[in-house]
């Protein structure tokens, strides 16, 4: 066992920190914060700066621009960026879709998408979830019907982060309705400005926006299929696993919140009663444990294991922890904790009310807590659930 970062990892952390604390980058972050949804907003300028560092492609195979980082180093990247409130949604999505293309796409698709995406010229989103297919994703009903060199897409996707900014979405659609539900799904890269694709905004708590995409006889060329026909469920399962790398960012957002709360309690002579101390201590413990679960996951992956239950535990624990601490933070601050983001007299710049609203998505997105518990119950405890 070894609980310390290596010297190389510490240097990586310093490099990322200095990027985050760079004056220009901090200004961009401040501007996004002023607009009201700092976590999910997208800045093309910052996105290109991250691309220059090679960070969009950091977890791709090295021949496509990957940086050869270990799982632990990828976590260090996400943690540090999250602590400094860099808007990461665009990078996480583009990086993830890029990995799927790199691992499963045809050479033609790789050449078409990967170099441009790595340079920060393309933004991708995920088109998985449907109005009636959330946790039970395999029951999706969006159809892709072959028609000559094309597929014709009909259906509705929903809750798409950055759907209104992205150039392409990775779409999961049913290509064979006559087999069991996981066996007839295929994936496509769909241009969101194509004819027959309509992107509608959905506004969410915390000044956020996700989107709904309505496909009406939208035509997508066959070469945009990612992986083999009807093998989409397998690819999706792998892709959901890749999404895990960014979980570590969630706990780091929590660390930032915790550190600011602690400063506030100390500096402002705020109530530091026994109860406040208990809450802060519990927060810190849960953040520490979130980090440890994530590092253990990285250790297991580095050792060549596919730790299904451990990944679910990490996601479950850290997302539940951040939701809890968002509420505890408001309790510690009292009613001023409800003052809106950016309002002048708000403690912590009004971040508590923002986090309290957006944290509700953390226990839902990328597999809800219930789905995580089910995975844990099945694979760690062999329960017939």
């Amino acid at each position, binding site marked *: 066992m070894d609980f310390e970062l*290596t010297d190389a990892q510490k240097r990586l952390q310093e490099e990322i*920190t200095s990027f985050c604390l760079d004056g220009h980058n901090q200004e961009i972050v*401040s501007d996004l914060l002023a607009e009201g949804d700092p976590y999910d907003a997208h800045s093309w300028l910052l996105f290109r700066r991250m691309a220059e560092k090679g960070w969009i492609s950091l977890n791709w195979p090295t021949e496509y621009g990957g940086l050869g980082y270990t799982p632990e180093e990828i976590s260090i990247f996400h943690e540090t960026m999250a602590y400094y409130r860099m808007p990461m949604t665009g990078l996480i999505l583009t990086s993830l879709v890029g990995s799927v293309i790199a691992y499963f796409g045809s050479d033609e698709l790789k050449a078409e998408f990967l170099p441009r995406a790595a340079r920060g010229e393309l933004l991708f989103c995920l088109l998985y979830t449907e109005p009636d297919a959330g946790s039970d994703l395999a029951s999706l009903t969006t159809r892709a019907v072959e028609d000559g060199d094309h597929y014709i897409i009909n259906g509705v996707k929903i809750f798409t982060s950055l759907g209104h900014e992205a150039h392409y979405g990775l779409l999961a659609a049913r290509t064979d309705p006559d087999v069991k539900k996981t066996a007839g799904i295929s994936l496509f890269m769909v241009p969101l400005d194509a004819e027959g694709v309509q992107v509608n905004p959905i506004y969410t708590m915390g000044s956020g926006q996700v989107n709904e995409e309505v496909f009406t006889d939208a035509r997508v060329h066959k070469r945009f299929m990612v992986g083999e026909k009807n093998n989409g469920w397998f690819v999706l399962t792998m892709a959901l696993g890749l999404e895990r790398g960014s979980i570590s960012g969630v706990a780091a957002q929590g660390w930032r919140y915790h*550190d600011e709360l602690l400063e506030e309690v100390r500096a402002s002579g705020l109530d530091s009663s026994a109860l406040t101390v208990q809450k802060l201590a519990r927060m810190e413990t849960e953040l520490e444990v979130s980090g440890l679960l994530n590092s*253990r996951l990285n250790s297991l992956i580095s050792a060549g294991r596919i730790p299904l239950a451990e990944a679910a535990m990490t996601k479950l624990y850290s997302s539940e922890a951040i939701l809890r601490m968002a509420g505890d933070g408001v309790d510690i601050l009292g009613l001023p904790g409800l003052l809106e983001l950016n309002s002048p007299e708000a403690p912590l710049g009004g971040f508590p009310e923002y986090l309290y609203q957006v944290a509700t998505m953390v226990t839902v997105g990328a597999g809800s807590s219930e789905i995580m518990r089910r995975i*844990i*119950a099945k694979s760690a405890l062999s329960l*017939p*659930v």
Partner: protein
Amino acid sequence: MDLTFDEEQEMCRRAFREFMEKECPVEVVSEMETDPRGFSREIWGKMARLGWLDLGMNDESGESGDAMTTTCILAEEMGRVLAPVPYVSTAVMGARAVAVGAEEPVRSRVLDSVGEGGCVIAAASTEGSRFDGLRTMRCEVRKSGGGYLLNGEKTFVEWAHVADYILLTARVNGGTTAMLVDRAEQGVTVRPLKTMGAERFARVSFEGVRVDPALTLGNGGRGGVSAAFEDAVVRGRVALAARMLGGCDAVLEAAAKYARERVQFSKPIGSFQAIAFRLADLATDLAGARLLVYKAAWTLDRGRPGASRLAAMAKAMTSDLYLKATDAGVHIYGGYGCMLEYDVHHYYRRAKAEAMALGDAERCRAEMFGAHAEERAVRWALPRQVEGAAL
């Protein structure tokens, strides 16, 4: 970072588990509840011969030492079977206080004796109703004639009735000092207390007990607190936390097995989410708590800063978890959970005392912002305010 156990540690765990399962079936645990001595000399002797009672002492080797880590692996395995032996107070707390505070030749004499299984040490950390830190002691040592005399009372001292020595702290000259008191000294009275978990607690009073200068373990630590005793408490907490992990693990394993086998509504009850999810949450918390405990142990082994704070954090988390796990365990067994014929009650009855020993969860969390506040690790620096924007 590498948060997995290495091959040698896995081998140790297998050996510990095999031994504990063989030597300490639940019948032994039950039998010891009514045994006058309350612990198995046989198991204790075998552990000594295997070299397991001085595992925690070989940590002078610096970088490569992993004495506390190995101790935790052993404590976990003992916790799984509820091994009735005075391990933590003797081989972890007592041995550590002596190693840190005693002078030769007493140091080697006591440590050798502990290693050989020849001596039992009881650790007296409480005076009132609960562990209240090391500054509020009322026990006191006063100069009298040519020597020093100890007066006062310690409560809920586990294993005092069989101990050769009692490890304690007392006030002296405005500070505190740690010492071993020979239980056979004149003026030491041990009155056993019967408790829920059949713990071998006793109220121990000291009336003009002669203090042997060779058995005093130094003072002059932080804030006048005995460094030897503080060190013993920190390590004691980590070992207790590890022992509770073992208990949680056993309860979770048994409850999951029961949930797979028990059929109601024509299905195994483990197929119901109300049961399965409760167990999944426990498994998750247990995995997290285990990493926290081993981080504390690793930090002690490597002599890194922050160990006391991590020990408090780990003790707090495992204390809460052990209560939650034993509660769930009994509940999932339903009526059978209350039956003495089933094993889960053993864990349920003992969890409270474990959770309260050396500071309950609230106490440990409060210490994170009191006694150990300055050990707080700063992971990232908060960014400075950028002109014209609220950060």
